[in-house]
């Protein structure tokens, strides 16, 4: 238990110390929020979709959580490069605990980042429909964070160096974001696209956030929660298995 706690604490400490990184990581979501939010707003409105900012804000929060949690998992590669990974791998702690500590730490950091973006959305004019929705929103944020931190850990355990990073970014993380319905509604899509969006775990995360914060949902909050929980368990198992196989 202590090992899980100290490794969790390490992630949180490192995050709180990297102010430059925190500000840098706000850049991309802000760009989407402000440029797309205000740029596409009038078109969205005319098409009868209501306020675009209101629609996309949960998606941008989901995006921030996705990026932060996947990268915190992939940060395993940095620890491998700088050697710290060895220190945790020879310690008399079951590897599963090392993996859980890291993953929970990464998920916590992702939630902090998501909360930050949420505050920015509020400043930009986003309004949740009810106060009760906010705690539920945090539950969905936590689920997204755990799912993708576990995915990041699985990837980080399987790669040897940073060379595969671009590949992961372009062929996994960005598609997960773009296909999640963060930027467009999932109804009335072409069949193929609709099918792919249903396979994307983030679709359920964003939908859950949207259900909690704006009251409108595509799949429904219950289905979202069930799917996310299932995927989280599967990816945690995958991550634990990949992590246990690391040789240095």
């Amino acid at each position, binding site marked *: 238990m202590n*090992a899980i706690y*100290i490794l969790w604490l390490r992630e949180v400490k490192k995050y709180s110390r990297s102010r430059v990184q925190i500000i840098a990581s706000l850049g991309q979501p802000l760009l989407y929020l402000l440029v797309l939010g205000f740029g596409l707003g009038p078109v969205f409105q005319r098409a009868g979709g209501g306020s675009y900012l209101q629609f996309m804000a949960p998606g941008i929060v989901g995006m921030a959580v996705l990026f932060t949690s996947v990268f915190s998992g992939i940060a395993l590669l940095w620890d491998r490069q*700088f050697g710290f990974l060895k220190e945790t791998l020879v310690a008399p702690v079951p590897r599963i605990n090392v993996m859980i500590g890291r993953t929970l730490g990464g998920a916590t950091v992702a939630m902090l980042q998501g909360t930050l973006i949420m505050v920015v959305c509020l400043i930009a004019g986003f309004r949740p429909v009810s106060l009760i929705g906010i705690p539920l929103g945090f539950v969905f944020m936590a689920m997204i964070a755990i799912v993708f931190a576990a995915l990041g850990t699985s990837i980080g355990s399987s790669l*040897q160096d940073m060379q595969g990073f671009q590949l992961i970014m372009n062929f996994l993380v960005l598609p997960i974001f773009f296909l999640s319905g963060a930027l467009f509604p999932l109804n009335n899509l072409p069949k193929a696209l609709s099918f792919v969006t249903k396979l994307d775990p983030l679709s359920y995360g964003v939908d859950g956030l949207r259900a909690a914060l704006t009251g409108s949902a595509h799949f429904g909050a219950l289905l979202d929660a069930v799917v996310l929980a299932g995927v989280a368990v599967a990816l945690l198992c995958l991550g634990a298995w990949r992590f246990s196989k690391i040789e240095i």
Partner: protein
Amino acid sequence: MGAMIRVENLVKKFGDFTAVDNISFEVPKGEIFAFLGPNGAGKTTTIKILTTLLRATSGTVEVDGLNPKTHENEVRQSFGIVFQDPSLDQDLTASENMDLHGVLYHVPGKVRRERAETLLKLFELWERKDALVKTFSGGMRRRLEIARGFLHTPKILFLDEPTLGLDPQSRNQLWTHVKRQNEADHVTVFLTTHYMDEAERVADRIAVIDHGKIVAIGTADELKQKTNAQSLEDAFLALTGSTIRDESASSTDQLRQVAQMFRGGRR
């Protein structure tokens, strides 16, 4: 009975490359055992197998009577290690690195803080304990790694070229401390070094390894007698030749990467 480390017919291959080629040796409890060899001879690979970081291709390995493959956690509890290359978290302070290590090795809070203070003072890092490790010089980082390795009291201490980049004062401090631990607590020490004088000074027995094979094993005097050499350095050169092996170390790493890529790809 009494063997802390037992290795029999150990082989480790990375793809087609044989890094450790059928070696056998035993280290009894309480002995200081030195592993000498040119770069890329297989020293670090052997240590990695003994410390559960790598799995052997074939052969038997026992650490404190247990197989590192099947009893990972018990084996990990029994040893401490100072790695050849850095293993600190540079974004944490010196104390935080010590503390994290102590928690991972189940050292109780009070003991952890006391020992950390003693060790940081011993290796003259106490004044900088709250500075981030990334602001440390190479020598200071090295000293912190060593101080950390002593934080818990293991049965076996692995020191993989611990004195690399250290000044004579710190080297002296290190070996005095190692000797003291060895005498007081019967800690078994398994070390590798490129400094022959160190090996001669602290080691009870020395094994010389080259191209993955043990070419000689015995006390420093026995090795000198065997090769008719005046000094251990001459004995070492007589046993391993005088060609420089720097290249083989990096090509080993490359081969390992290729091998790992292939293995990763097939899964």
